[in-house]
Structures are given as structure tokens and as C-alpha cells.
């Protein structure tokens, strides 16, 4: 897993991507290019949002960084390690609920500890601590089907945090939630992020979400996904999302995305061949 060879890149960066490309079903007739030549450096503790039209490969990049899928070309590093397999240091949170339905909340939170043989009493303490941090201390003995969508995602966050990750990868984690819950969850996530000191890589297609959360916003092109530009979000925290500056940033991002969305549509309608 952890390659011991010294990294050719800064070992202080939490994620480094160099010329990363991904072709799905490579070498077959169904082959399609998801990502092309991604170069990206992410610092420890940074909150980076991946923004782009649907199907632009931003989730694919997250899977590559998680180590769940191999890159077709290029290299991904995390601190000193070349990313080749998944690691508890890089926790992934999905859009759909991914709690194990047959385990209760505390068993879900400490799944990673259970497979390492941590005794039950210790696991319960770890779960209690992690659930405290996501404001769900009461739900420790509940089952996932007794929780609302927002609560389930908080349990998923608690599960990811209990592994003390250095990088938190989030794949549209709040997309399935209603607007009010989603805003609550964003505030909650910012608290958790500050406490944990982990870098967060957050995939979304919501410009509002990108403006509310990010230090930097990586804007992707339509298929194949390339980095169109990286926008630094200098709005002071806590953020006033109704300020003139945040409105200006939203308009800027909307302009950046409009071309890409148009192109994605045209491609889906078969008006232009895929690049």
C-alpha cells in the first residue's frame, strides 16, 4: 500500500495529481475518456470544491484519489504515499446513504475499528465521541432505517471522522437532501472540517454550495473532464452568502460553467462529436 520510495513531489501536500487521465473500459468499443491531464496540488487543511457539469468526471477523480480505481495514466500522491489502493487516511462519503443497514449506528461508525479487532467497549467510546462531534450522541443505538436522510449522512461523516482521516473525500454528499437540511449540513460540515484539520475534497454541481464552502473551486470542463480553471474563494468566513462579493463570485462561476453545460448538452444530443 504505502510505497516507501521518496516522493518526487512535495511530501507536505495532502493530495498531488500529475497528468492524471482516466479512460473507462479502455481498449474496448465502449471506451470513453472521463479525465484528461489533471494537475492539482491540495494543501493540508484546505477545502477544495470540484465543480462541473454532470458527467464531467469530477466524481471519477475523487474515486481515483480514494484509490478505489486506478488511473489510466499519471500519478496521484498523498503525503509520502503513491495512491494505489484505498486507505483509511482518505475517507470517502457518498451521495447515497452508504450505512450498513444490518448494523446499528455505533456499529456502523466503528466498522473500520471492528475489522481491526478493537474491543467492543473501546469501539463504543470511539462511536460516542464521533457521534458527539456530529451532534448525534442520542442516536448511538438506533438503526439506520430509523434515521432521516440528513442524520444518516451525519452518521456517515462520523464514520469517516472516526478513522481520523487526513483527507475527507465527499461525492455530492448533500445532493439528496432538501434545501433547509442541506444548509444546516453545510454549516455542520464547516465546523467538523475546522475541528478535524483534514483537507476536504468536495464534489458538487451546485454553485451555491461551492461558494459557501470552498477555499478554492476547481472548475471542470465537459467530457473529457479537464481543469478549466481554479478559482480562489477569498470571501471571509463565516460567510455572508447574500453579500455583493458572493453574488459576484456566483455570477463568475455561472459564466464559467455555462459554456461547459452547453457543450455537454450538445454532445448528449449528438450535435458535436465527443472530444
Amino acid at each position: 500500500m504505502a510505497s516507501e520510495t521518496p516522493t518526487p513531489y512535495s511530501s507536505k501536500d495532502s493530495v498531488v495529481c500529475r497528468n492524471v487521465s482516466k479512460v473507462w473500459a479502455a481498449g474496448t468499443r465502449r471506451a470513453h475518456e472521463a479525465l484528461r491531464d489533471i494537475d492539482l496540488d491540495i494543501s493540508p487543511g484546505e477545502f477544495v470544491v470540484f465543480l462541473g457539469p454532470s458527467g464531467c468526471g469530477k466524481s471519477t477523480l475523487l474515486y481515483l484519489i480514494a484509490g478505489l480505481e486506478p488511473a489510466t495514466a499519471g500519478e496521484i500522491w498523498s503525503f509520502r504515499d503513491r495512491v494505489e489502493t484505498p486507505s483509511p487516511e482518505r475517507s470517502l462519503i457518498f451521495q447515497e446513504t452508504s450505512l450498513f443497514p444490518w448494523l446499528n449506528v455505533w456499529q456502523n461508525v466503528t466498522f473500520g475499528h471492528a475489522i481491526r479487532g478493537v474491543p467492543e467497549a473501546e469501539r463504543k467510546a470511539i462511536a460516542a465521541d464521533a457521534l458527539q462531534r456530529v451532534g448525534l450522541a442520542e442516536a448511538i443505538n438506533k438503526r439506520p432505517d430509523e434515521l432521516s436522510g440528513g442524520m444518516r449522512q451525519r452518521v456517515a461523516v462520523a464514520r469517516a471522522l472516526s478513522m481520523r482521516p487526513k483527507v475527507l473525500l465527499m461525492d455530492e454528499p448533500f445532493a439528496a437532501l432538501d434545501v433547509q437540511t442541506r444548509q444546516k449540513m453545510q454549516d455542520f460540515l464547516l465546523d467538523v472540517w475546522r475541528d478535524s484539520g483534514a483537507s476536504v475534497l468536495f464534489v458538487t454541481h451546485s454553485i451555491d454550495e461551492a461558494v459557501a464552502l470552498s477555499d478554492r473551486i476547481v472548475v471542470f470542463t465537459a467530457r473529457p473532464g479537464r481543469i478549466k480553471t481554479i478559482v480562489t474563494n477569498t470571501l471571509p468566513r463565516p460567510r455572508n452568502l447574500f453579500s455583493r462579493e458572493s453574488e459576484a463570485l456566483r455570477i463568475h462561476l455561472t459564466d464559467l460553467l455555462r459554456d461547459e453545460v452547453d457543450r455537454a448538452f450538445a454532445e448528449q444530443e449528438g450535435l458535436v462529436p465527443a472530444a
Partner: protein
Amino acid sequence: MTDAAIANPAPAAAKASAVPPGTAETWSTRLKEKLAESGPRIGWTLVSVGLFAGIWELLWAVGLADPKLLPPPHVFLGAFADQAKFFNTATRWSIGLNPADGPTPRQALLITVGATMGRVFSGLLIASVLAVAVGVLIRYFHLFEKLTLPTITLLSPVSPIAWLPVAIFIFGIGNAPAIFMVVIALFFHMVLGTVAQIDGVNRNLINVARTMGATKRQIYLRVIVPAILPGLLMVLRLNMFGAWMVVLIAETTGVGYGLGQVIMLARNTFNPSLVFFCIALIGFLGFASDWVLRMIQKRILYWVPETTGVLRGL
């Protein structure tokens, strides 16, 4: 739905504490609740069966159903006392034995039912344990899949009838060939069913386990096996009916006691009442076994949501 509303289990708790536990009242209320819950279902089951029997009786009453060929329920059930003696299939052919010896007709009926059920469930148990193990191994070891899956797929359309001579060649007569028949008839389908269940496991659950550092073995034991349990129980229920079908064919070989023997006897002696009596008996036993499996399913698969309510709302 807000988090607060979900987090508050007050209504259920209040209901439970309204009546002190252990009193006579809790028992009667609990019984009432149970009845209110399952009463309509039992009622509708009786109505459904009654409707079927009623049409049959009507056809008999107007002379369309010849009681010599299609005896209606009141005839074949009413003749029970007289028919029970035919269940004594093990000793009735024994030479030099007084027909009055051996079990009474009622005992013979119970022995027959017990023997057939024993074959059904031991066959089902052996087939499911083997099939789940092989199915999991097929996905776990790629080489094992390549070596076994084509043969298993090739053998699964073979009718149990074709296995009957094989069963006799290998095991002779008795319980062993009958159980072998049940196992061989179910095994291949259940392997394919298990593999399909494994392929249907939510990728996210597997990926979560992977990011937490689970090994392949841990992923199989802690994620895939519990995730496929609901589907496997469904496979088990469907194959339980299959087992009931096969066991009769298997029992037409010499097995001593067995419903298959009784039906063979009824066929050879032209006794339609006995045939229909056996059919009714098998229907009842199959229904009861399915009910038992459904109860087990509810108990151990507490996380599987009930969706029938949604369909009824359509």
C-alpha cells in the same frame, strides 16, 4: 421530515408504558393486537381457499364435475378416515405380516408426513449450505469460477426426472436417493441465485469497507454475506416449493413411507379421492413451511423494509 421529529420516539414509548407489563390486561391487549394484525390475512386466506372449493362444489352439484374423476373437497376430505389406511405404504406389501399389525392408519399418516417433510428440509438445508458456499467461492476465487460456473450453468436445466436413475444407481433405494434428488434439483439454481445476489450488492457498501482498509475476506464476511441474506432467504423460499415438487418424484422409488408412495398407490389403484387428499395435504404443508420461513425472515432480517404498503397505495 425534520431530524427532531424522527429522533423523538415518544408515541411508541407512551403506548408501551400505558399498561403495566405482566398483567392480564397486557396479555389480552397483546392478543387483540396480534389478531387485529393477522386476523384479516387469515380471513382472506380462508376466503380464497373457500372460493376455490366453492366453485368446485358447485360444479359437482350441477353435475359438471364427475365425483369419480374429480371428487369435490367434501368427498375427498370426508373420506379421510377410510383413506388413512393407504398411508401405511411401508408395511402393506410385507409378506407374512398381518395387515392389522404395524402402525394404525392415523399413525401411518403422521409417519408419512414426517418422512416427506424430513426429506424436504434435509434436502433444502444441504442444497442451500452447499450452494451458498459454492456461490460465494465462485465470486471469491476467479479460477474457481472459471472451473465450475460453466458446468453448473450447463447442468442447471437438467430435469430432476433425468437424475432419478442416477440417484438409484448411486444410492439404491431409501432416504438417500430421495434427499439426493432434492439436493441436485435445487443446488444449481441456488448457486446461480447466490452469484446473482452477490453481483447485486450495492457498490457503495463495498467501497466504504475498502476505504476503511477491509481485506477481501473481511469484505466478503462482513459486507457481502449480510447484504445478500435477504435475497438468499427469498431464493430459499422459492426453492422450498421446488423441494416439495421434487420430493414426490423422488419418493416414487422405494422409500418406505412417503407422500410420493401414497400418490403412486392412488394412481395404480385409480383412487382420485386419495390423490386430491394428498394434494390438499401437500398444499397445506407447503403453505405452513413458507409461513415459518417468512417468520424467520422477519426475525433475522429486521432491516429489510416492507414495501407491500407502497404497492397497495397505487
